[in-house]
């Protein structure tokens, strides 16, 4: 019990972090798997949404809801802008597009600090969520606990829509094979734009909800990008379950890992990624057809 008690809070915190990363990474996977864009500006979309949310939130419940919506809107708009920017070079392969998004990320970060200022804004959440909550005798930030609940609800909802509805089936089909939609008479360019907007909206949702947890700052874009890349690679491209497990793993390594093995924790994430890649190469061959 002692061990459990000592590590309870980091473990819970890892879940909160993991769920947040999961939402971000879902957008990254969508953009790459379905839109064909390795989006290195994905973290910037998160940052944009988080800054926007911070600007909108005023400490009231309505403000919080508006902030999340504003975050989604910001992310989606950013995704749309990326779709427009990458459209002319869509035929030039992953590398050209990745490079373009990297340029966008650099420009975007600068614009964000110019627009929102260099002081990292703090997100005002309703007073009730600002207070620590007691779980099993421990204090834990109320907002994070609420976030875990909301993320689980959203996740279950998303899973239900994807797995049990016709819309979900269509989405899955399009992710599985984007050209199927094209065959159905929808222009590939519109599918691509749609996918990138949706991916941006996911980053925006994460940014809006996550701003009080991983707040807007000058460095947040890079942090979020690298960690969601880790989640996607460790989890395996296109595997939702894998991504969820990977996200929780990445979250826990940064929380539980810090308390349990502080010396190894910094290496764990990228070492895990390397091991997963090697294992997958051994299984699927070196062709890189599966990331």
């Amino acid at each position, binding site marked *: 019990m002692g061990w459990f008690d000592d590590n309870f809070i980091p473990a819970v915190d890892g879940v909160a972090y993991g769920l947040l990363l999961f939402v971000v990474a879902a957008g990254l996977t969508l953009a790459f798997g379905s839109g064909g864009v390795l989006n290195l500006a994905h973290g910037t979309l998160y940052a944009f949404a988080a800054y926007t949310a911070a600007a909108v939130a005023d400490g009231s419940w309505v403000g919080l809801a508006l902030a999340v919506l504003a975050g989604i809107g910001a992310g989606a708009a950013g995704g749309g802008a990326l779709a427009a920017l990458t459209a002319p070079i869509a035929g030039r392969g992953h590398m050209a597009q990745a490079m373009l998004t990297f340029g966008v990320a650099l420009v975007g970060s600068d614009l964000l600090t110019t627009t929102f200022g260099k002081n990292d804004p*703090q997100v005002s959440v309703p007073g009730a969520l600002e207070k620590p909550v007691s779980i099993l005798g*421990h204090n*834990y930030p109320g907002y994070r606990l609420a976030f875990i609940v909301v993320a689980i609800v959203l996740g279950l909802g998303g899973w239900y829509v994807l797995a049990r509805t016709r819309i979900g089936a269509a989405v899955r089909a399009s992710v599985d094979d984007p050209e199927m939609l094209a065959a159905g008479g929808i222009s590939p360019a519109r599918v691509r734009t749609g996918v990138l907007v949706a991916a941006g909206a996911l980053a925006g949702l994460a940014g809006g909800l996550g701003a009080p947890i991983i707040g807007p700052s*000058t*460095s*947040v874009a890079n942090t979020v990008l690298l960690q969601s890349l880790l989640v996607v690679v460790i989890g395996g491209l296109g595997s939702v379950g894998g991504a969820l497990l990977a996200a929780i793993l990445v979250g826990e390594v940064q929380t539980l890992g810090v*308390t349990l093995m502080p010396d190894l924790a910094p290496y764990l994430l990228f070492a895990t990624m390397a091991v997963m890649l090697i294992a997958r190469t051994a299984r699927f061959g070196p062709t890189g057809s599966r990331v």
Partner: protein
Amino acid sequence: MTPASPISRRSFRVTSAGLLAGALAFTAACSGSAADDKKGGSSSGTVKIGLTIPLTGVYAALGPDLQNGFQTYLDQHGGKLGGHKIELVITDEGDGPQTSVPSVTKLIKQDKVTAVVGLTNAATVAANVQVVNDNKVPMIGAVGRPGKIDKPDYVWHTSYLSEEPGVAAAPYIKENVAGTVYAIGPEYQGGFDQLRGFTDTFDKLGGKLANPDGKTKWTPFPGTTNFQPYFTEIKNSGAKAVYTFYAGTAAVNFVKQYKQSDIKDIPLYAAGFLTEGAVLGAEGDAAKGVFTSLNYTPTLDIPANRSFVAAYQGKYNALPTMMSATMYDAAAVLDKAIAAAGDKVTPETVNAAIAKTGKVDSPRGAWEFNPATHAPVQKWYLREVKQDGTALSNVMVRELGTLG
């Protein structure tokens, strides 16, 4: 060689012409030749001063505090220091040496400034010591100062030695905390120095750290944003108080998360930056009750401070911070030194004159350089974050004595 097709030949000519033009334009733009480059200096007229301050990175929020402090002094003195019109050249300090070494190099080699001022990050200072010593250009740091500089010939600080906030606070904490203290800080030069000041002094006084291995806990810098896991360890250590040093974003995260965690009721002591300036506004009520030690507080009731605070507030609509005050003092030091250099204002004459500055009438009270360390001999204060009218403020609790 396979002959190129006519088309590619034509465009090739266009390309090479373009490249050639580019190279020429570039050469012209870089005007001047390295072979006959002279040092910066001026016998009369404008003197260039370089500011290297964080414009990007974790400490970007501190940039305006620094720049505004310096500017306040200039504004009060008609844009002149020592009778010379001052031209400011600003460069970015970024997250540390990676950005700041090129920045300081540019100020010295390209802009040929008479002095370099600013530099928040102790690691930045450490990496640039050699640059300024080699080039014989004075560098006046206004914030972080690494503990050990072998040859501080051209290095000056109007702030403090990085150990001093901890050294000043340790006796008070030893007296007032009944039990062990947990020490935690960021894993870089500034953190090492700040925390060492506390832990060494505390240890000498017979205090015991609560950290399981008896050593300070280091958090990765600048990457750490989530402190919850560390708080769990602090809780488990049974500490009766926590001593730390964080600044900028990290300070905000630390304080806000602290007050939502299991250890929210454990007293928190820190070097002043934890609750200084914009950081305090961002922390809000979470900062209430945090004790910090620093060489300045805007509520200090002396004439020099009153006029400084009034001027600063009048222009920037914010309270000055310790960084504003030290930058203000850096301008004051340069004012005296440039005047003393007389007709021949060169980096070397200014540097020589800085050594003879004597007492500086500063907003934090009079201080002077310690000739050995090139840092101020000054008073230290213990402050507590309290509601002061509508705003939170670092209210002075007591003096902690003179160091330096």
